[in-house]
């Protein structure tokens, strides 16, 4: 490595520009100059959106409209319009809630955990992954609200001085922990996302001609002027936030799993739930990141920054987390058999052979078998295979939550109250509508805000040059190979 740097440095006065001698940065194709990086990312926002974007947006908007209508009807009539009954009191609503919270986790993993591990490949995908987190948590937050039946009384879940005693919320309940965890998670994710965007907003501000656009970017960029003294503090704060967000993200899905694990229901009452849920969350989130990045790179032409190597790295994460999830499925069955509890054993036999067995096999097919494809380089390097597999991962993870929630509830301890859950058109409509909300937000985001972190990509690309200047700095990670 150092000999390469030396060669590059020696070669420079010989007439060759050192860019040709420096090895290519690993996570960006070619040698874009700093100005080209700004141009490439901003061009995608300044150009008129292509046909692909409009088609996606029209579909998403239609689904969002559908959500509005369904929710209005739900508020007017009450949750009796869903397929719930007294045995299956949680179904699509809580399934969707857990599904969307899980999706959010990959964004934090990419932005925080990979930052702590100094993984350079996060730099061109972290911005959109963080945006995804925020939109996913918004969708997740919708469902407990709808599920309450009287959403206008939603403020009851917050501990505020009231005239009913004051009767405080029950702080021993995981449901209350959940409220605090999800609100904290949304707040910290929003702050992290916005803070990361400030330098890029300043770049946009300085490119914009006078007008509304400039005024808006000026307001949002808080007067950022690129001072290194500020950069130095800014990077420290990013690391601190990453350090805070890492245990936070683990705590969020742990607490979500405790909503189930602290109950006595067979299929829920399991100590394996917290790690199992966290792994599943990261798995489903990476599936969604993959879907979104493939759409973004194809419709916005960012192949140079979101490279096949990025997709390959994500496919490997899917393989790892998918295998952890499969191992957890196996462990659940093993504990049910080995633990000797009759109810637990019945539940798992029912899961694999009962009336919802089809859902169980969809889950196994999508979550345990699909990611095994990624052992093969051919599968990891085909955009089509990656796209289909990432969608299947999300289908599988939705079914996982459905299986955990509905199958556990529909045949409980008392056979006389066994029941089936059949989704109504409103269950389906709200499920589809949440996707509409999510994709509408995301498609608007990639139009109006920089979906690739311009300054972080510049840092990645400029890294080789700075190694040359600091050739005695052994602590700098090596990135500029291959």
């Amino acid at each position, binding site marked *: 490595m150092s000999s390469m740097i030396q060669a590059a440095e020696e070669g420079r006065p010989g007439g060759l520009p050192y860019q040709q001698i420096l090895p290519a940065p690993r996570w960006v194709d070619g040698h874009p100059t700093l100005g080209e990086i700004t141009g490439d990312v901003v061009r995608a926002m300044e150009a008129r959106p292509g046909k692909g974007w409009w088609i996606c947006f029209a579909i998403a908007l239609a689904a969002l409209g559908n959500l509005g209508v369904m929710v209005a009807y739900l508020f007017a009539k009450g949750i009796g319009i869903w397929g719930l009954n007294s045995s299956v009191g949680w179904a699509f609503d809580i399934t969707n809630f857990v599904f969307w919270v899980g999706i959010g986790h990959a964004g934090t993993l990419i932005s925080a955990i990979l930052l702590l591990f100094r993984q350079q490949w996060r730099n061109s995908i972290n911005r959109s992954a963080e945006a995804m987190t925020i939109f996913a948590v918004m969708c997740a937050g919708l469902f407990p609200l709808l599920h309450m039946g009287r959403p206008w009384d939603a403020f009851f879940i917050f501990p505020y001085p009231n005239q009913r005693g004051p009767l405080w919320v029950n702080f021993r309940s995981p449901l209350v922990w959940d409220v605090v965890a999800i609100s904290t998670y949304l707040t910290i994710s929003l702050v992290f996302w916005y803070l990361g965007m400030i330098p890029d907003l300043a770049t946009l501000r300085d490119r914009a001609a006078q007008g509304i656009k400039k005024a808006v970017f000026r307001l949002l960029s808080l007067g950022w002027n690129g001072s290194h003294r500020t950069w130095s503090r800014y990077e420290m704060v990013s690391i601190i936030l990453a350090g*805070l967000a890492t245990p936070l993200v683990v705590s969020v899905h742990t607490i979500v799993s405790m909503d189930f694990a602290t109950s006595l229901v067979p299929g829920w009452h399991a100590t394996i739930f917290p790690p199992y849920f966290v792994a599943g969350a990261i798995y489903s989130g990476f599936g969604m990141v993959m879907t979104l990045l493939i759409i973004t790179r194809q419709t916005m032409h960012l192949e140079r920054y979101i490279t096949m190597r990025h997709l390959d790295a994500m496919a490997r994460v899917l393989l790892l987390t998918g295998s952890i999830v499969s191992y957890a499925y196996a462990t659940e069955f093993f504990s049910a058999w080995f633990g000797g509890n009759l109810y637990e054993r019945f539940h798992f036999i029912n899961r694999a052979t009962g009336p919802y067995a089809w859902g169980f096999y969809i889950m196994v097919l999508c979550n345990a078998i699909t990611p095994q494809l990624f052992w093969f380089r051919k599968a990891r390097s085909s955009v089509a295979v990656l796209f289909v597999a990432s969608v299947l991962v999300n289908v599988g993870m939705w079914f996982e939550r459905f299986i955990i929630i509905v199958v556990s509830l529909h045949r409980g301890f008392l056979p006389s109250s066994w029941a089936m859950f059949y989704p109504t058109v409103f269950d389906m409509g709200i499920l589809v509508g949440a996707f509409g909300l999510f994709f509408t937000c995301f498609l608007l985001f990639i139009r109006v805000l920089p979906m690739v972190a311009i300054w972080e990509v510049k840092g990645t690309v400029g890294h080789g040059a700075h190694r040359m200047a600091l050739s005695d700095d052994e602590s700098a990670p090596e990135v500029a190979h291959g």
Partner: protein
Amino acid sequence: MAREFLVATYSDANSLMKTVETLRAENLKIHDVYAPYPIHGLDQAMRLNRTRLPWVTLIAGLCGCGVALAFQFYTAVLDWGMNVGGKPDNSTLAFLPIAFELTVLAGGLATVAALLLRARLYPGRRECLIVEGVTDNRFALVLPKSDSPRPRQILEQSGPDKLEEKEAEL
């Protein structure tokens, strides 16, 4: 209050870094560097002190934790005890998840607020760019104007794209 500065503009971080090292080796003062991305290693080269912001995180985090524990203890034990499933009024272990969340929330928000205060970043602030393009593809090395000719000499030798004297409010 506008002051006078000596501003050298570069188009790559490499020459800027070497100039900074030369200047600091002679103990000359550097006002600041303006760059489109954080140049790693420049902190040491400029001999910047380590920021004290992590202390803000620690203190705010501890406050968040303390407030959460105290509030849960007050509501569940002192103000209105409730028997939930026979658990003790003071279920400290069950109060930990919320205490943890508030530690993170308070620590995170306070750190960001402290950064914005310290760096004087706030909505509506008019940006003051020392040269055009420092948020895009230019690097600017800014020295306070001095009577000694040495800083100017070093900057000239470093081969900047442009070297100028400027009045600015930085």
